[in-house]
């Protein structure tokens, strides 16, 4: 119902805006039309950089380079042979390039694709870096592009630049492009894939464990962002009608960065508002550079004053609204209407499970983190893995779940060797885990967290999310994922929090949410890393019941690391004990309680004589 209402409202708004654009040549003078054009182009650029930086969390400073590629590709395609002939006055243009000529629309699409192609080439090696390194590498790349353009005069006319590009960027063209980009971006970000992008930003490790190939996702987001950069650059070139390499210096990237910071990192709405605000403010503030007369006081115009005031306003925004105007929120028609209550239904699946670990060793340099671990878990078991601090329990978890590669040994999961697979591949095989220190996607809602977990079981491709109205399986699968997620949440008693931010939940609920998210990947085998940590005795009693219920209701096999001996002894069917990487004991809880080696490991040699652990 809401969806239909919102769709109608959106269509009405788009029609009204289109009518306005149609009338714009009469209502506005050329100056304001130009600014309107710039707003649309800046919005495209901001959206694309926001996809890379704000939404997927990759700090990129290379946007100017991708703009340059787009602007040049498009310009070279739309210029006529006669124009090209007269412009290459220093060196001759390549003959094959001279006669290339395409319509404008095709040229901007090729421009976007070219930028995306270069984006992909850069992304493959560079996205292995993170954080500041990525920023520096992309910054370097955009400088390389600029210098290449300057030095390949036969191709680009070097520093002389290109001029006389037909002014194809009309209001309908720029806003039309923005419209398409906006619809595709919003559709993609609203689909579960959007959640996956944000998940990679919030916690890459946890995202991996949700079966997400985070590298692929980052390459995808980066490449799509570069497409936007190329498209924006092409439109910019066709608006200004002349381009040269110096247009695409680092300051160009800073301008876009400024827009998304002001608008809100990670908010599509913010990018649009930010570009409208920054573009108009910069032009509107021009009057402060003109001589001003207030009463009898005459203030002479000071060049550069505009930037001073603009910077001051920016500082004010940053001080009073650090997250930008929109933060991470988005515009939705729903803000005008009261919130409806969600409904849920349920259904689960069942299957078989066995894990076998054989002679597993893990060494870090000279340190034997795990020395020869052997165990088997059969279907439906709850197995405990205990040991004092530094025994290698979490290391064993990390090896099984794919974060570390075992130095030696075999790990067989459901009869298939998984040693050396990456976490996301392991997850796809049907294994999931929680973390000792909770790793939720803090900025997402509880429901989104769980839905991200189900992405690994969805079948649609990323490009389908750009046009969900054509590829309806996106909507259907997301709907199913949502139903399942709500179902999981209600089973774990979290349904009341569904629309709250994950980071705002109480501690115990966050633990349960992490489990719910793990269950959304439809695992057959679940690794729980200290689920009782930080719980009071009453909470841990509930946890014990909960773990048993998990096994029964979801037909799971569970491997548990836990320090709380009460939980371990009551829940586990079988226990393995590690001490300093050595597998020192195994048995039923009763056997372990009275095993002298275990007592020695926990309490020291002298304590063994005094009796049992628990």
């Amino acid at each position, binding site marked *: 119902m809401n969806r239909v209402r919102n769709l109608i409202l959106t269509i009405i708004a788009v029609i009204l805006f289109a009518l306005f654009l149609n009338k714009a040549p009469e209502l506005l003078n050329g100056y304001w039309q130009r600014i309107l054009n710039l707003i649309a182009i800046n919005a495209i650029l901001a959206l694309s950089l926001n996809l890379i930086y704000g939404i997927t969390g990759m700090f990129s400073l290379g946007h100017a380079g991708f703009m340059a590629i787009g602007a040049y590709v498009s310009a070279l395609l739309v210029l006529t042979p006669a124009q090209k002939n007269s412009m290459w006055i220093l060196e001759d243009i390549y003959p094959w390039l001279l006669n290339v000529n395409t319509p404008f629309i095709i040229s901007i699409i090729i421009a976007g694709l070219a930028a995306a192609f270069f984006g992909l080439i850069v992304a493959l090696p560079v996205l292995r870096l993170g954080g500041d390194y990525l920023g520096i590498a992309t910054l370097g790349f955009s400088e390389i592009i600029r210098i290449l353009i300057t*030095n390949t005069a036969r191709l680009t006319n*070097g520093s*002389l630049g290109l001029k*006389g590009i037909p002014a194809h960027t009309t209001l309908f063209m720029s806003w039309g492009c923005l419209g398409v980009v906006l619809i595709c971006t919003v559709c993609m970000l609203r689909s579960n894939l959007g959640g996956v992008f944000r998940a990679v930003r919030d916690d890459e490790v946890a995202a991996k464990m949700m079966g997400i190939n985070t590298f692929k996702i980052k390459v995808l987001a980066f490449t799509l962002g570069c497409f936007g950069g190329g498209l924006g650059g092409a439109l910019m070139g066709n608006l200004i009608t002349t*381009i040269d390499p110096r*247009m695409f210096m680092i300051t160009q990237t800073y301008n876009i960065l400024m827009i998304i910071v002001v608008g809100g990192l990670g908010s599509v709405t913010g990018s649009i508002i930010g570009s409208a605000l920054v573009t108009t403010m910069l*032009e509107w503030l021009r009057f402060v550079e003109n001589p001003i007369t207030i009463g009898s006081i005459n203030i002479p115009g000071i*060049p550069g004053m505009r930037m001073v005031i603009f910077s001051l306003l920016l500082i004010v925004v940053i001080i009073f609204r650090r997250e930008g105007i929109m933060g991470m929120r988005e515009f939705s028609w729903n803000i005008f209407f009261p919130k409806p209550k969600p409904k849920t239904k349920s259904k689960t699946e069942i299957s078989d499970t066995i894990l076998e670990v054989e002679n597993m060793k893990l060494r870090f340099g000279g340190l034997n983190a795990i020395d020869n671990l052997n165990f088997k878990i059969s279907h439906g078991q709850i197995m405990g893995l205990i040991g004092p601090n530094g025994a290698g329990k979490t290391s064993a978890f990390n090896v099984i779940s794919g974060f570390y590669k075992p130095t030696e040994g075999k790990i067989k999961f459901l009869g298939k060797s998984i040693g050396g697979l990456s976490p996301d591949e392991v997850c796809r095989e049907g294994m999931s885990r929680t973390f000792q220190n909770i790793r939720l996607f803090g900025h997402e809602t509880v429901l989104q967290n769980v839905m991200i977990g189900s992405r690994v079981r969805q079948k649609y491709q990323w490009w389908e999310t750009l046009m969900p109205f054509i590829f309806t399986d996106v909507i259907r699968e997301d709907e199913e994922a949502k139903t399942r997620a709500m179902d999981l949440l209600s089973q774990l008693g979290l349904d009341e929090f569904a629309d709250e931010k994950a980071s705002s939940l109480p501690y115990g609920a966050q633990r349960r949410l992490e489990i719910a998210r793990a269950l959304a990947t439809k695992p057959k085998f679940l690794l729980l890393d200290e689920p009782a940590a930080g719980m009071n005795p009453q909470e841990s009693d509930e946890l014990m019941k909960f773990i048993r219920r998990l096994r029964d209701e979801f037909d799971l096999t569970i491997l548990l690391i836990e320090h709380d001996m009460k939980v371990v002894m009551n829940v586990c069917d079988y226990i393995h004990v590690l001490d300093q990487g050595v597998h020192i004991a195994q048995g039923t809880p009763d056997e372990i309680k009275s095993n002298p080696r275990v007592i020695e490991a926990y309490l020291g040699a002298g304590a063994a004589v005094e009796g049992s652990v628990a």
Partner: protein
Amino acid sequence: MKKFLVALMLVLMLCVVASADDDVIKVGVFNCLTGQNAFGGQLELEGTQLAHTLNPEILGKKVELVIVDNKSDKVEAANAVTRLIENDKVNAIIGTYGSSLAMAGGEVAEKAGVPVIGTSCTNPLVTQDKKFYFRVCFIDPFQGAGAATYAFKHLGFKKAATLVDMANDYSVGLGKFFRDSYKKMGGEIVASLFYQSGDTDFTAQLTALIDAKPDIVFLPAYFAEGAIVLKQAKELGAKFRFIGADAMDNPEIVTLGGDAVEGFLHTTFAYDPSMPEMNETAKKFTEEWNKIHPDKAPNVNCALGYDCYIMLKDAIERAGSAEPAKIRDALETVKDLPTVTGMTTINATHDAEKDMGIVEIKDGKKQFIGIVQPEV
């Protein structure tokens, strides 16, 4: 805080009260007042302002200068010209330093049909296929050939080299035109080296130049890099001479360069305060300039800014109207107009045909050597 911001906005908005007056001729000036080219842009603006102060009325109408900054940025340049035409409804426009900025602005003016007079945008592409763009400066091929003529014919140097800023259209163009002319005259180009705007270490290029043993090196640099090149060449003990172009025409060259610039030559427009024989316009300009700026000598940028206004005034008077289309037609027929930088004639491609001067730094002073006719 919100209230404060709203109040601030209101106050700011109240300040913008535009006045519309039919008896005023509005002349827009768009130039680089901030950004990397601000140095040249600022001097040109001061030249234009001086001309305006001396000639506040044309055809009995008051002239109003509307000054906008283009921040040495293409997008801003196009915006600035659009603003001048659409919001301020100017009759004509003067500007700018920097050919790429002129091209961005020129496209807008061309569509709107408002004439523009370029100050020092010397790239041939600026006026190419443009009906409304003119300039008071000569163009790069002319200046490159002039420098080559002076080096080959007047100084008798047979071996030359070029050191060019690869990222600067002005420099790349001049370097190429110099090499072409020099070779046509029979000279030998022994080395052709490059750097990038913003570089500060030229040791590698200078060492290569020293090895190539040219008699003279053509250095079509902007002042920022050019001054450093001269300094480092002196430190490395280079024996060849340097000849630069009009962008090296800077009143502060001696103070900044010290004895490293001794003997440095540069081509420029036919004006320098050290000129022995000035025409009347130049004399008046120099006198009036010195009155307003007693501690700053004028240079060619100031002169070109001044000349733009003089040429515009002449066109409006001959047209008998400040209508943009009529000004344009009158500008096309400018012939032997006395300007600060010599006699100006506008040719078929809207470029100024005028004399080219040579300046040499001698005994710690800029000295105008004379006028050169490019031969090839």
